[in-house]
């Protein structure tokens, strides 16, 4: 289904009657400040499955990579900001609006636009999000359920948006004319430890935008389980295309010192559609922002394998690539920005 409007029902929190649930209202904006690319992110996450919290971050420093004898090593930047205070959740819904409040953050969501207000002392904002074009839906339809793992059914929407307003970072006000994402996702079951590797990527180009996700997991019966979805919208051609197959492959790796793990520095993506093939190069552009604290689960023994590590971060990325139609036409995709969210859970 093609639409630029949310339904109010999909903006409301879901499964409030369930003790186990996840709801998010997730906002990002990429813009330039004094000629340099920056990224602000504000998320409101409700429910017990991944913890109730708000997460605010601001990325501005270029990635700091050091060549060491046996590995490329990534260093943190003091110029970036990341805070994720716990927050009480409340919501109010009227006929044409859903208002979510968590701590310093307020999300005012309407069918055609969404507003994010942050009253945080370190990172305040007042931003308005309007879809650039058709909203991208998990499994291509509003509210469709995706079998992401054998127990997890995810529904959601990714609205690649034009964003206006202002952000104030540690007292410095920045006017915003940028592009970003408003995401609304919900699910009511999750066995987090079944996940082995997940990539979720959204990207804005001047002539296109896209979203894709794959998740490799293990079932309760210890069998491999694969999930993939994705859509690309080509603006000039006005083509909204659903992914029919997806490959995400790390090309180079970097040692993420803070979490004591190697992570992909560059990844290649191939997504096939009925009309052609999308190929992307995705590269980390700023230091990753942790979605959850990295965990070394020394005390966890699953299937007699002791000691596991859990990593869950949002990597700000730059992207380039092309979409090749089956008739040979090529749409070049340059200067892309987005986020590559990664989950990796593996033995230590």
């Amino acid at each position, binding site marked *: 289904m093609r639409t630029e409007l949310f339904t109010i029902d999909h903006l409301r929190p879901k499964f409030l009657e369930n003790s186990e649930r996840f709801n998010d209202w997730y906002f990002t904006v990429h813009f330039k400040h004094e000629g340099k690319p920056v990224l602000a992110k504000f998320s409101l996450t409700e429910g017990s499955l991944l913890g109730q919290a708000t997460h605010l971050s601001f990325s501005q420093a270029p990635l700091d990579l050091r060549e060491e004898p046996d590995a490329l090593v990534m260093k943190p930047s003091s110029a970036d900001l990341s805070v994720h205070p716990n927050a009480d959740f409340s919501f109010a819904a009227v006929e044409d609006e859903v208002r979510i409040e968590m701590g310093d953050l307020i999300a005012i969501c309407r069918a055609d636009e969404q507003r994010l207000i942050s009253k945080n002392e370190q990172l305040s904002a007042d931003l308005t999000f309007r879809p650039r074009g058709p909203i991208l839906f998990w499994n291509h339809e509003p509210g469709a359920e995706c079998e992401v793992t054998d127990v997890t059914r995810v529904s959601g929407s990714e609205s690649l948006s034009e964003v206006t307003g202002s952000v104030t970072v540690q007292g410095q006000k920045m006017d915003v004319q940028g592009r970003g994402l408003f995401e609304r996702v919900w699910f009511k079951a999750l066995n987090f430890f079944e996940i082995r590797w997940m990539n979720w990527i959204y990207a804005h180009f001047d002539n296109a935008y896209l979203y894709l996700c794959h998740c490799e997991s293990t079932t309760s019966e*210890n069998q491999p389980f694969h999930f993939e979805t994705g859509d690309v919208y080509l603006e000039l051609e006005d083509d909204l295309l659903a992914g029919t197959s997806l490959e995400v492959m790390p090309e180079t790796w970097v040692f993420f010192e803070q979490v004591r793990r190697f992570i992909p520095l560059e990844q290649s993506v191939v997504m096939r559609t009925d009309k052609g093939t999308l190929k992307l190069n995705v590269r980390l552009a700023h230091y990753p922002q942790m979605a959850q604290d990295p965990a070394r689960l020394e*005390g966890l023994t699953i299937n007699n394998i002791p000691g596991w590590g859990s990593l869950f971060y949002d990597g700000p990325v730059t992207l380039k690539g092309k979409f090749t139609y089956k008739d040979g036409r090529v749409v070049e995709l340059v200067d892309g920005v987005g986020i590559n969210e990664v989950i990796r859970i593996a033995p230590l």
Partner: protein
Amino acid sequence: MTDRTELAAALDTARRRLIDAEGHPVIPGWNRQIEYYFSDVDEHWLMAVVDGMPAEPVQEESDDPDIRITMSSETFIGLMNGTINGLKAVTSGKVRVKASMADMRQMQVFM
């Protein structure tokens, strides 16, 4: 230090989570020995589940439980009354778990 009444109530809460409002098992056909070890008081508690129905926990150490959960009694009480998040308790090291992948999923029912 937590008192015995709170610990007993928390154990009862864990047991009741395996039984639905009509008194039927939440996970029918499930047969497991679940051992809780409360490290601060050095106590082992064993709960046998037969065809999904949990027995009253007994203070006893098993040679080979299907699921072993190690934590302080305070953490266990927090998990049962909802003041501590289960996933966070595991990721922060407050809870040590030995289980199969299948049982990790079922543990979400009672943990």
